[in-house]
């Protein structure tokens, strides 16, 4: 049996491996030596340009978005103590989707770069409404957040469908956005969302200890000196930052946030000080791995990472769930 810290180093190594693959593999075959050279200095060739301007930003974005989704999922499940809670439960995904479909239908926007601020804004507003509804009267508890999220998401999803069905152009663009993918995301997208993702990741990692305390139950947590309201509010803010920025950059990947924390818990138990770092490393492995497979599996076209993630990740997830005693929340 490996110790948990050895496992963490292995996860990190796997992530580095996936990142290298993501830089090296693509529709255009570039020799490995050229790839490695292009990482340090550009010789001005087309191959070097492809690597430096497309694959590197796409890979960095994949790492950040993956880590963000994994952490957001772990925070969400710990906050709501609900295994069905994906990071979108705060209304983040449905808020982003509603804003993106509006931007396409009413403002005529066409590309991922143009959607970014709309998606992020929609996600933030939806999360605020859900959290506000959940904390009306007194502090937002786990069940309340789940119910409030369900109600608000129902309305937003309905709106999103109505707009799509009324406007064929919106349907045509939106059906690709909703799948989720990293294709065509370049440096401009990365620069816009990276600050939010990095801040969110740091805040999330600092929440491990307080989340452990409140996992003992409200009374015990309070007795141990945890400020429940503040921990929950900080966690909700971190989820909104992480999931909102990730969704804005790459579309809604609900599967990663939903399943990776379960996988992490099955490996290391329920201690958030381990669950959070494991989730943050395993999730980008899944995302980058899926992205690489998607690039080569159906040449000459690409299969979106959102689809590959589910096709590859779900069987692994089911096997894990069947094979082990899953650590409950």
């Amino acid at each position: 049996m490996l110790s948990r810290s050895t496992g963490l180093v292995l996860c990190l190594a796997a992530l580095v491996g996936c990142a290298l693959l993501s830089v090296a593999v693509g529709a255009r075959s570039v020799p490995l030596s050229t790839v490695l050279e292009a990482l340090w200095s550009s010789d001005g060739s087309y191959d070097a340009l492809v690597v430096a301007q497309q694959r590197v930003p796409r890979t960095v974005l994949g790492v950040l978005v993956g880590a963000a989704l994994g952490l957001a999922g772990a925070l969400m499940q710990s906050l709501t103590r609900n295994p069905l809670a994906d990071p979108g439960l705060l209304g983040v995904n449905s808020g982003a989707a509603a804003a993106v479909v509006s931007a396409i239908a009413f403002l005529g926007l066409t590309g991922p770069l143009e959607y970014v601020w709309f998606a992020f804004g929609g996600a933030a507003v939806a999360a605020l409404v859900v959290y506000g509804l959940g904390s009306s009267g007194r502090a937002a508890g786990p069940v309340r957040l789940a119910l409030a999220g369900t109600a608000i998401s129902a309305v937003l999803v309905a709106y999103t469908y109505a707009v799509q069905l009324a406007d064929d152009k919106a349907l045509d663009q939106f059906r690709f956005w909703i799948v989720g993918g990293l294709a065509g995301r370049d440096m401009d997208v990365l620069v816009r969302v990276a600050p939010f993702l990095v801040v969110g990741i740091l805040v999330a990692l600092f929440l491990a200890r307080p989340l452990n305390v409140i996992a003992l139950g409200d009374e015990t947590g309070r007795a141990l000196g945890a400020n429940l309201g503040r921990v929950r509010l900080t966690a909700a803010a971190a989820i909104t930052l992480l999931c909102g920025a990730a969704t804005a950059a790459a579309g809604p990947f609900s599967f990663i946030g939903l399943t990776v924390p379960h996988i992490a818990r099955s490996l290391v138990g329920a201690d958030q000080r381990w669950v959070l770092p494991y989730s943050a490393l395993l999730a980008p492995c899944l995302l980058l791995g899926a992205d690489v497979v998607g690039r080569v599996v159906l040449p000459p076209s690409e299969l979106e990472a959102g689809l590959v993630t589910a096709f590859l990740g779900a069987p692994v997830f089911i096997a894990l769930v069947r094979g082990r005693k899953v650590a409950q929340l």
Partner: protein
Amino acid sequence: MTALGSVRLLDGRVSFRLHARSVWVCGAILVVTLGALVTALVVGDYHVPLGDAVRAVFGESTRMAELFVARRRLPRALTAVLVGIALGVAGAVFQSLTRNPLGSPDIVGFGQGASTGAVVVLLLFGGGATQTALGAFAGGLVSAAAVYLLALKGGAHGYRLVLVGIGVSAMLIAFNNYLVTRAELTDARAATVWIVGSLYERRWPEAVLMAVALLVLVPVVLALSRALSVLDIGDEGATALGVRVEPTRLVLIVAAVGLTAVATACAGPVAFVALVAPQVARRLTGSPGPGLVPAGLLGGALLLISDLVAQRLTSPGELPVGVVTGAVGGVYLAWLLYREWRSGRG
């Protein structure tokens, strides 16, 4: 919360406790449903006077009234109510079984599997309405069975069932999205309408099918409703109280999935009825326990009213009913939650 007393049937083998507020609430929902039903017969692109509409229901009326009311509006409205009842009851069963307010038949991958079945028939084989319904029925049942069997390992433990359901659903959603993104735009649109859930052009065959399914399955669920509330205290406790946990759970799941399957074949996987109806019903009646009857009645009312709105809102042309159930159900649930939480209850 005063109990009205208990009702005993079949020499006391079946007995119910009646809860005064639940009875009032159910009565009120029935009145609302009846009002909506009459409205559904009268209102439309062709207005039929109330008298003609009622006579058409009972046989003799003008030719136009018969065409619009007896052959189109009445079966469609009945289908709406019956589909809503089926989804409401199924949702209440799943939320109670999983002890999870997010529980719905979709946690065993039902809605996603039905969508996959329908989308495959629509997009790959270009099938018509009947074939699509059959595809959905088969797809939903196969995925529900697959989830149950995959989770079965010394008993389908609730938690493992939920997790396996997440995995299978994710694969099915990805597959559906794959087909929709690769399809022609018009086909993608048709598939989206189906996935949202629609009652467009639903006639007597659907209404009759739904009625038969309810007559067979709802009594099964109601007969087990006591056992369902006992399961709420946990497997060990329920066993101690004499409930055979695993068979009871299996029968309840099969019945609830059966209700969802027929409803989905008739109207598509109408969003949020199964999720929202039990929650709203529970808040209206204020009674503990699964509350199957109020959840079912509320589902029926929600779907019928939503379908009326869906038909009239963008007339001519209509929205699929799933858009309205999501919006109406979501807003109403949010309002109920807000009121409850503001006043410090719950």
